[in-house]
């Protein structure tokens, strides 16, 4: 008893000693870093102070790719600070409103960035879009995406990706089927697959309920057209309308083909049935190839969501990622310098090559001939399109996305309640637009 007592006492004394030394070290460490970030950057150092790049690219490959790009930056010393995207999304308002915000941040183009800009939280980067600025040569669509209502640019887009119906080439060969051309072919194909005991569609709407908006967006684009779609998302049309009702009728036809287990999967987990050939197709963004085992990636192919009404302009979802800077940054010149570097063709080329997922560069000066055949096909897909949209949340807001998640996941469970669901969706949406 006395020996165990002694050893326990010694253990406690030891941990207390460690604690004390840690206490001293901790105080020194935190004090020092605080001085560096708070006092030093602002007044004295001026425009040459160090920069912080707050990044939501936490997946290993994009993270490494971003590091490779920033390593070649010869401006102010830049620290990349990676926070996983769900966290990042929740903390973004705090980052931007804090006294000493991160200088440059990764995020999405379009209405999300515009919302922050309208609160005066984003740095005006119009000079990058003029003359020989880094973004001056970008397409008009990208310029429009990065521009606020008052005509200033606040965003620097660096890469985007496309959505499509992905499948395994070998599985399609094995089942003797081909990518469908028309919507009727697509439905018939799903019917055939279901008859053979194969789940036609996989979709992970458990912890990532926003996936259910993928089909909604596409059906709305194919049935009502991009103009109506964007107007709907900005509150000009009602969700409880005949047009949306038509979309839901078509969506209801898909429900029997969608893997019911997907209601408890995340989008990543929904990849597994596809890889195992238990499910045939997956409507998802090209980023999903990161979650595909390395020996299957080359077997992945995709086709365009079939056209339903060919009198409408052909639209595709092409979410655009990039960077904006906090208006309260200590070093606006440095922030713009860093953003110019991130948008430069060489940087984009490095990023796309290393980021793993199938990303497309926004700069027209990037040599795309070295990219994989699937990326080439993605580029063609978007070039053939008349109009590009982003995705539900990026074309509206994260708040409206929540209303869509509620409505659509309920619709997946109770398609016969569609009237009630749409009425409630419209009610929830009105609150978002008023608030």
């Amino acid at each position, binding site marked *: 008893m006395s020996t165990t007592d002694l050893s326990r006492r010694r253990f406690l004394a030891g941990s207390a000693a460690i*604690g004390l030394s840690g206490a001293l070290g901790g105080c020194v*460490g*935190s004090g020092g870093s605080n001085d560096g970030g708070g006092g030093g950057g602002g007044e004295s150092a001026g425009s040459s102070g160090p920069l912080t790049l707050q990044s939501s690219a936490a997946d290993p490959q994009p*993270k490494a790719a971003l590091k490779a790009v920033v390593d070649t930056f010869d401006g102010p010393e830049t620290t990349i*600070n990676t926070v*996983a995207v769900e966290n990042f999304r929740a903390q973004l308002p705090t980052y931007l409103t*804090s006294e000493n915000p991160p200088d440059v941040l990764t995020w999405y183009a379009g209405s999300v960035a515009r919302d922050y800009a309208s609160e005066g939280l984003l740095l005006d980067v119009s000079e990058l879009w003029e003359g020989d600025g880094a973004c001056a040569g970008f397409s008009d669509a990208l310029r429009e995406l990065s521009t606020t209502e008052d005509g200033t640019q606040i965003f620097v887009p660096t890469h985007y990706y496309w959505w499509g119906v992905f499948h395994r080439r070998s599985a399609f060969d094995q089942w003797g089927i081909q990518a469908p051309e028309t919507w009727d072919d697509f439905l018939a194909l799903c019917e055939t697959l279901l008859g053979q005991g194969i789940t036609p569609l996989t979709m992970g709407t458990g912890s990532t309920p926003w996936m259910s908006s993928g089909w909604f967006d596409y059906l709305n684009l194919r049935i009502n057209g991009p103009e109506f779609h964007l107007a709907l998302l900005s509150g000009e049309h009602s969700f409880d309308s005949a047009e949306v009702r038509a979309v839901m009728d078509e969506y209801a036809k898909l429900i029997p083909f969608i893997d019911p287990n997907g209601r408890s999967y995340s989008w990543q987990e929904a990849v597994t049935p596809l890889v195992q050939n238990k499910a045939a197709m997956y409507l998802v963004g090209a980023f999903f190839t990161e979650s595909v*085992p390395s020996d299957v990636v080359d077997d992945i192919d995709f086709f365009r969501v079939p056209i339903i009404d060919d009198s409408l302009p052909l639209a595709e979802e092409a979410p655009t990622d990039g960077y904006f800077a906090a208006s309260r940054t200590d070093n606006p010149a440095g922030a713009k310098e860093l953003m110019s570097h991130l948008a430069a063709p060489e940087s984009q080329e490095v990023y796309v090559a290393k980021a793993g997922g199938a990303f497309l560069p926004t700069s027209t000066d990037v040599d795309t001939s070295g990219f994989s055949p699937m990326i080439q096909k993605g580029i063609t897909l978007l070039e053939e399109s008349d109009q590009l949209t982003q995705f539900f949340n990026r074309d509206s807001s994260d708040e409206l996305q929540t209303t869509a998640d509620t409505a659509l996941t309920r619709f997946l469970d109770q398609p016969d309640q569609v009237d009630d669901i749409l009425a409630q969706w419209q009610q929830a949406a009105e609150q978002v637009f008023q608030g």
Partner: protein
Amino acid sequence: MTTETAVDPGTVRRSANVGPRRRGWIFHACMAPLTLLWVAPMVFVLAVAFRSFDDIAARGLGALPASFSLDGFSTALSEGAIGRALANSAVVTVIGVVATLFLASLAAFALSRHAIPFSRTILLTMLAGNLLPPQILLIPVSSITQSLGIYDSLFALIVVQVGFGLGFYTFVLHGFMRSIPNEVLEAAVVDGAGSARIYARIVLPLCRPALAALAALATTWIFNDLIWALTVLRTETKFPITVALLNLQGGFVSNWNVVASGAVLAAIPTAVVFFAFQKHFVSGLLVGANK
């Protein structure tokens, strides 16, 4: 005297051993499956941690392991920087626990042994602060740390942890110190000891069981805290283990082996503390049980 025996860890263990050594087969038949059910998630996490990504992606998360790989651990340690996060957690936890208990014992000593006006009100106010759900204090704490200029430092996290622990620990120690017989302290006064001496030489040693129990509880609470760390930190290199795990999960969403490995690594320190202080956990649950 009564309190002494109640929280003496030896007593607790001895009385547990007095119970029937052999139990009926019905007991075992019922408890064995329950135990298995209880252990299943941990076994599952361990099994996933040692599988390779390709195995998990190709055969599913629930499949029996068909591969053995330490990739998950090496990725979690290198890419996820779990080692650095554990060091941050250790700094915050050790300093936090030592500082809280020191301050709480001082406060409890003063409140229980000295005639302080409104001592009861002070004590209840401190405790009342603990009854507020931390969620409603997130934004105030975030902006206060920002205006003090300590936002995004481990120091801020330690201050917050100490501040929020203080009320409860003071309350528990106060109750404990009040039960120390007055005669002991009076004898010390007669021998010429001042307040500081009585605190250091008489009260603290007598409070050792309570302090040990509270230290064990506080260690797990601070180590496992996520919400305050999220509130006051934003730089990756300063994240403690809980936030780092969340980050790891966000970055390696489908790499279940990496996430599971990170979770296993994160659980090791708490498990070690639990086994080292096992008796104190039991007595910790009994603190204040017989007043």
